[in-house]
């Protein structure tokens, strides 16, 4: 059923930037029966832009890896506005490999403007850290399910987006770069964010149409912040169904399907 309140791409960007937009910290206690947080990449440190640990959903143990937006300035300082450093991606990968060892499915939540851009991030190999996440998730021998909670920006997002099934919350956006960055690069004017939103194809419907995502998770009227409980329930319902489905599939078959899911994305012609 087509809803009457479909928002424009720019309005959705405003919804996901709304300061009441629920974050992973709000969702974890509502989606999972329990959650034990784990820390550190065992190399350099613990990046608080990414939260990870073991949770259980309707009794199924899973590894949870998520980008953390803050709900206020202090939380945002703590989590660096959900912009991970290389050690964040290495923590994510460590926990994913651990999940593989114990045959636990992995659930990733994407909610980031992008990977952090800074001197230290470059010194510690931001590019390499993201690349390793992507290649290892591509061959991780356990089911992986990802959900875009708010904003999925660039390489920093796809590092947690290599999965067997991707769902996008109805008002979430997923893009090659932030619309602001897009406007800045193509038109030398970061102020043309709205125009960028209109041509970039960033909405949940766009993702399904472009075969980037498989599912759209419905949000309450006006956005997730209007009823966090209901949104969490919708996410949990999707996760449980998807988990049950993917866990039944032989892992080699699943890995082939995962490869094919990304393999077929791209548009070109051959004379």
């Amino acid at each position, binding site marked *: 059923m087509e809803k009457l309140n479909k928002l424009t791409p720019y309005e959705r960007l405003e919804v996901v930037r709304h300061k009441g937009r629920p974050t992973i910290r709000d969702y974890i206690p509502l989606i999972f029966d329990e959650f034990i947080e784990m820390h550190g990449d065992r190399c350099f440190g613990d990046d608080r832009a990414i939260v990870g640990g073991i949770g259980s959903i309707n009794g199924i143990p899973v590894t949870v890896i998520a980008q953390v937006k803050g709900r206020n300035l202090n939380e945002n300082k703590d989590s660096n*506005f959900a912009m991970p450093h290389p050690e964040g991606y290495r923590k994510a990968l460590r926990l994913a490999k651990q999940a593989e060892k114990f045959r636990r499915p992995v659930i990733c939540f994407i909610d980031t*403007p*992008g*990977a952090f*851009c*800074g*001197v230290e*991030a*470059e*010194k*510690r*190999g*931001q*590019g*390499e850290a*993201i*690349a*390793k996440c*992507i*290649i290892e998730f*591509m*061959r991780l021998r356990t089911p992986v399910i990802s959900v875009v909670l708010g904003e999925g*920006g*660039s*390489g920093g*997002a*796809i*590092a947690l*987006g*290599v999965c067997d099934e991707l769902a996008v919350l109805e008002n979430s956006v*997923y*893009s*090659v*770069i*932030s619309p*602001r*960055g897009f406007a*800045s*690069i*193509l*038109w*030398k004017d*970061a102020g043309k964010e709205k125009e960028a939103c209109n*041509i*970039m*194809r*960033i909405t949940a419907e*766009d993702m399904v149409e*472009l075969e*980037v995502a498989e599912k759209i998770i419905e949000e309450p009227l006006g956005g997730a912040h209007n009823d966090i409980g209901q949104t969490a329930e919708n996410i949990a319902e999707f996760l449980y169904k998807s988990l049950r489905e993917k866990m039944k599939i032989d892992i080699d078959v699943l890995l082939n399907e995962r*490869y094919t899911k*990304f*393999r077929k*994305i*791209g*548009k*070109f*012609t*051959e*004379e």
Partner: protein
Amino acid sequence: MGLEDLFNVVKTRLNVIDGNAADSGSEDKTDKDDSAVRVPKNMLFKCPRCLNVIMTEELEKNLKVCPECGYHARISAPERIKLIADKESFREFDADMLSANPIDFPDYEAKQQTLRDSTGLKDAVVTGECTIRGERCVIGVMDSRYMMASMGSVVGEKITRAFEFATKNKLPVIMFTASGGARMQEGIVSLMQMAKTSGAVARHSDAGLLYITVMTDPTTGGVTASFASLGDIIIAEPKVLIGFAGRRVIEGTIKQRLPDDFQSAEFMLEHGFADMIVERKSMRRTIAHILKLHKTGGAA
């Protein structure tokens, strides 16, 4: 928030006067260095590293390496193949693949047609098989003249197919990387090419086969954050730009100028993200040597 340019980090910093390497498309043309001396096109080359100005002819004779500081300037894919492959050994793959317009980006087709006419390329990467001192291998060469070798559908597909061909035929792969990052004009579809290419690298690697990356000027953004960083052996050309985020973005964040060697090949070596820096004149010999050493390896 300072995320501009995340995937398109190469701007005016490495523009050169000869106009050969600087053309990454219209978005780069507006803020050229005011102090640049206007001279007849193609006559002079100003080194972006040491700012020394020399005759282009002199640069060409030196394999396009700055004689003053050793900066390895950009070269085209055909020039690169000529330098690396045995004579007449190169056989191109997918030479006729053209990009569609996945997000209906305005003027994307026209822009590409203009570039095809001026460069003779169909997109930003040339792939194929060849021999190097008799060793058979698959190679891919990115060409920065074409939209700063940004990765869209064609680049992603050709690289993926090159790896798949190599996996099937048990061949090593050598990728000469250069890129401004993801191709903005293809939106989210370009981002997905990072996963697609990396998946093909994974299968090639799992088959026990060798993958050598040669990072050339400039290797940045989504290409650094995918297949470029995944080589078993990572070689860089001297003084080239290698990094993830845009220099100006970082400078904007920290509010101070970064040192000149930041995000250089030497910087990558120092921080542990490259195995070696190899000069252009020794590249063919070095690669052939590594290929020979791996001849007995690999899952049979």
